[in-house]
């Protein structure tokens, strides 16, 4: 796919689209506060980058996202493991977890700001809350997906339950867990931006808000581009880790049954399929 020829086509397409955009916006006299031309967006991007403003806010957003991701994932993994392994845990706790999930957690953002203030804590909490659920569901499904024959093999060797967990259930769950991490990373970014929209001292979300008040639409576009790149990079990192960890899963694709890909209660639970 990545032949010089195709790269050439890609560049030509990009230039054609932005050129058309520029000409249309200028030709029709569309005001800059409705849809800025690409040249203005580029100018805003250069201004924001050179002045170091974007870097400062970017750091705040990425920091919140990563901390929230880690916090959410640790909780999700711990609770998911509990639900998967303990009937009692499952019975008493799972209904609440599902109830909590059905609520749009974005609606909690104002409360979170009241509780945790305008600093990084609110972002972390918001990101963790949003990122939590898909990984938890995938952990549960994954840990329960261990192949019956393999469990029997372990049992026939007189393995203890903890040996079965570490040597079989956890590795079997990894494809699901990694897929959950991929989704969680993107959701953590969304959670952070939402918290920043509601109130924050720094962050790209807060920057978009303030640009909006100043009718700086070109600036907003440039920040959106930064956000898209950040999201893409974060996703790439998880994908790379996943390929490393799951070297055996990609080779086993053909033999892993479709039953493994069954979603639970309509929630996210897919393994395989990289972005």
């Amino acid at each position, binding site marked *: 796919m990545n032949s010089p020829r195709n790269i050439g086509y890609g560049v030509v397409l990009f230039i054609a689209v932005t050129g058309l955009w520029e000409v249309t916006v200028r030709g029709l006299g569309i005001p800059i506060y409705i849809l800025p031309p690409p040249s203005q967006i580029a100018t805003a991007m250069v201004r924001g980058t050179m002045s170091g403003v974007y870097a400062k806010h970017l750091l705040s957003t990425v920091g919140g996202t990563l901390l929230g991701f880690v916090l959410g994932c640790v909780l999700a993994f711990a609770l998911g493991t509990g639900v998967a392994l303990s009937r009692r845990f499952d019975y008493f706790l799972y209904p609440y977890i599902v109830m909590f999930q059905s609520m749009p957690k974005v609606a909690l953002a104002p409360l979170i700001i009241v509780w945790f203030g305008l600093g990084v804590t609110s972002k972390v909490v918001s990101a963790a809350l949003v990122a939590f659920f898909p990984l938890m569901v995938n952990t549960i499904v994954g840990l329960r997906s261990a*192949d019956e*024959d*393999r469990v*029997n*093999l*372990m*049992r*026939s*060797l*007189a*393995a203890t339950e903890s*040996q079965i967990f570490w*040597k*079989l259930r956890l*590795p079997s769950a*990894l494809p699901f867990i990694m897929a959950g991490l991929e989704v969680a990373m993107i959701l953590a970014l969304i959670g952070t931006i939402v918290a920043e929209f509601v109130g924050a001292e720094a962050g790209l979300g807060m920057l978009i808000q303030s640009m909006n008040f100043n009718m700086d639409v070109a600036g907003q576009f440039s920040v959106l581009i930064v956000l898209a790149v950040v999201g893409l990079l974060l996703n790439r990192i998880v994908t790379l880790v996943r390929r490393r960890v799951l070297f*055996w*899963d990609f*080779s*086993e694709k053909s*033999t892993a049954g479709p039953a493994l890909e069954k979603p639970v209660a309509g929630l996210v639970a897919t393994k395989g399929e990289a972005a």
Partner: protein
Amino acid sequence: MGDARVAIEVGQLTKQYATSRGGVLALENIGFTVQEGEFVSIVGPSGCGKSTLLKILAGLLETTSGTATLRGTAIRGPRKDIGVVFQAPVLFPWRTVLDNVMLPVEVQGLPREAHLKSALALLELVGLKDFESRYPWERSGGMQQRVAIVRGLVHDPALLLMDEPFGALDAMTRENMNLELQRIWMERRKTVLFITHSIPEAVFLADCVYVMTPRPGRIQHSERVALPRPRPLDVMTTPAFGEHVHRIRACFNSKGEVDA
């Protein structure tokens, strides 16, 4: 075999499964013995309870009544002196061939160094020398099943249980694996209980074949096979071999069951 020590003793073993419409009798009054170092096949059609029997011997299922003992102690759960080979290789794709083979050693906390040596020797015996650090999915189905056999033998168990281990392989590979298994067995002289639904395979490999018939699962007949070893594949075309097969097949025909 000259050695008359008893390895397995199964007496009046009965297994009943509870279902919504009452109990289903899977095994009724099963009784047989296997001598140390003997190769015993159990042959029967699908659903005759032979896999249930194997699961009981592996300690994965409980009996309803009756006893099964190995070297004088009752089998009441999984135990460390039994190796099991299933129909599928049941390997762990995230482990290399050697790590798969060493799984029993790890799980049972056996000394690693000594068993590493025997693992490598066994891998060499089955023709997998130099592949120990590869991954199982890089190898063919027959190779994977060899890895599974080595894994079943690595902790030097008193008994090797094999549940239709070659059922999923194509006919040519299967014949090769039969030769291979005979070679391994002659080298190691393990007590083997081999379950299959192929009558020729059962006769080819065994010192003694027990014939199981279904509903409920019973041992209908036992057939001593005294053909000299090593048996070449050609032995299957000899009259003596044909007679064994014929007598076993007659058990199923008399019951209106034709299989294999």
